[in-house]
């Protein structure tokens, strides 16, 4: 399969990229790592007239410590984020999710910001970034603004990034010492999750002091399992207590029905996977 024809620009600064975007408007598509976009172009589900490749903008790559947050450049490949020690220490939930994201070749090429901007509800990075309360920094002609995770994911494949804006970095608030686990349910090893649960917990002396839980593919956007988080607070990190709290996992969700399973099946999976994710996270953090 071959994409439809398009013109191509590879700017070397964000400003050049924004100028190109302003000039070509909705005829343009931003290319990050391309691991989701190129299949879309090949299948001709989209046929932009202009592709603007961010791959040659060095300032969009890299990870840095910024006080209370670890900041990940949007064009940093998954492999780099997944093996980064700062991320592992302060935002372990993200490291865990990347371990089983797609496959090695895709992780080499795909980018952190590209996957988040693509906003596939079955993507593996939405739930962990939402759970950790990530902040999304977007740059446009008028400067930069920061969008909290709760407002970033708008709908299926839709984010708060404006048509004239580019996601430049993602700020991950530090959750140092929290236990973390990403429990993913798939039929085929390297495929998208049917449902997945991202859990980070702060355990103090055998008690879950705080929990942050994100759900993948339980609606048109990643979702927080707030009822579970509330039910877990102050509970012992035991199988029975976690099971009781996890029973709330599907509350407020609107999962899809497809060939992999209907909505009820996904609601059931959410409770089971939440229990497993929280117990594993609590074990790791205790």
């Amino acid at each position, binding site marked *: 399969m*071959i994409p439809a024809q398009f013109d*191509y620009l590879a700017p070397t600064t964000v400003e050049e990229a924004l100028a190109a975007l302003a000039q070509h408007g909705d005829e343009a598509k931003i290319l990050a790592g391309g*691991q989701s976009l*190129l299949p879309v172009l090949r299948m001709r589900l989209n046929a932009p007239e202009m592709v603007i*490749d961010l791959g040659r903008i060095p300032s969009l790559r890299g990870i840095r410590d910024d006080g209370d947050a670890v900041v990940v450049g949007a064009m940093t490949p998954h492999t780099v984020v997944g093996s980064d020690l700062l991320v592992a220490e302060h935002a372990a939930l993200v490291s865990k999710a990347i371990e089983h994201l797609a496959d090695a*070749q895709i992780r080499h*090429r795909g980018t952190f910001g590209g996957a988040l901007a693509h906003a596939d509800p079955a993507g593996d990075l939405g739930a962990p970034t939402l759970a950790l309360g990530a902040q999304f920094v977007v740059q446009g002609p008028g400067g930069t603004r920061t969008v909290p995770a709760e407002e970033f994911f708008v709908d299926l494949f839709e984010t708060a990034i404006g048509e004239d804006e580019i996601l430049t970095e993602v700020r991950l608030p530090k959750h140092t010492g929290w236990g973390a686990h990403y429990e993913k349910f798939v039929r085929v090893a390297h495929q998208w999750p049917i449902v997945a649960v991202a859990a980070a917990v702060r355990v103090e002396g055998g008690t879950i002091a705080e929990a942050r839980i994100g759900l993948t593919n339980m609606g048109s956007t990643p979702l927080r399992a707030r009822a579970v988080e509330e039910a877990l607070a102050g509970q012992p990190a035991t199988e029975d207590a976690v099971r009781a709290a996890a029973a709330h996992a599907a509350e407020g969700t609107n999962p899809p029905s497809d060939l992999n399973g209907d909505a009820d099946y996904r609601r059931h999976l959410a409770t089971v996977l939440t229990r497993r994710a929280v117990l594993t996270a609590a074990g790791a953090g205790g």
Partner: protein
Amino acid sequence: MVRINLTVDGAKVADDVEPRMLLVHYLREKLGKTGTVVGCDTSNCGACTVHLDGTSVKSCNVLAVQADGGEVTTIEGLSQNGELHPVQEAFRECHGLQCGYCTPGMIMQSVDLLKENPQPSEEEIRLGLEGNLCRCTGYHNIVKAVQHAAGQGAQA
């Protein structure tokens, strides 16, 4: 058309290509490197795996223009001075193939895996090759071949 310059299997090449041209098509159709095959065309099967700037990628999921300035190694660039690469040798030794279609990609991904992790466990091998599909072997001898290559110090 866009001018690209890159190094493929140690040789410098330059061409004018359409931006939409996939790296795998560039390798096969412009350079005649047909050792790299197109399998699924959906970025699932990994048959088209090559190394770009030192790491494995699915060459059906990279534009040729994205590889501009880069260094590509295909299955055809693995052997040195007429000697098979130790991973190629191990696939032959352990009969890590039946029809052979997935083999170029399996070998390229195995080389990448062993570079990162010279002594992988069986589970690590299976996880490391999760992006490469084989419809014949059930993976048994492929895993054995990677273990064999690791035992021979194939990362060197």
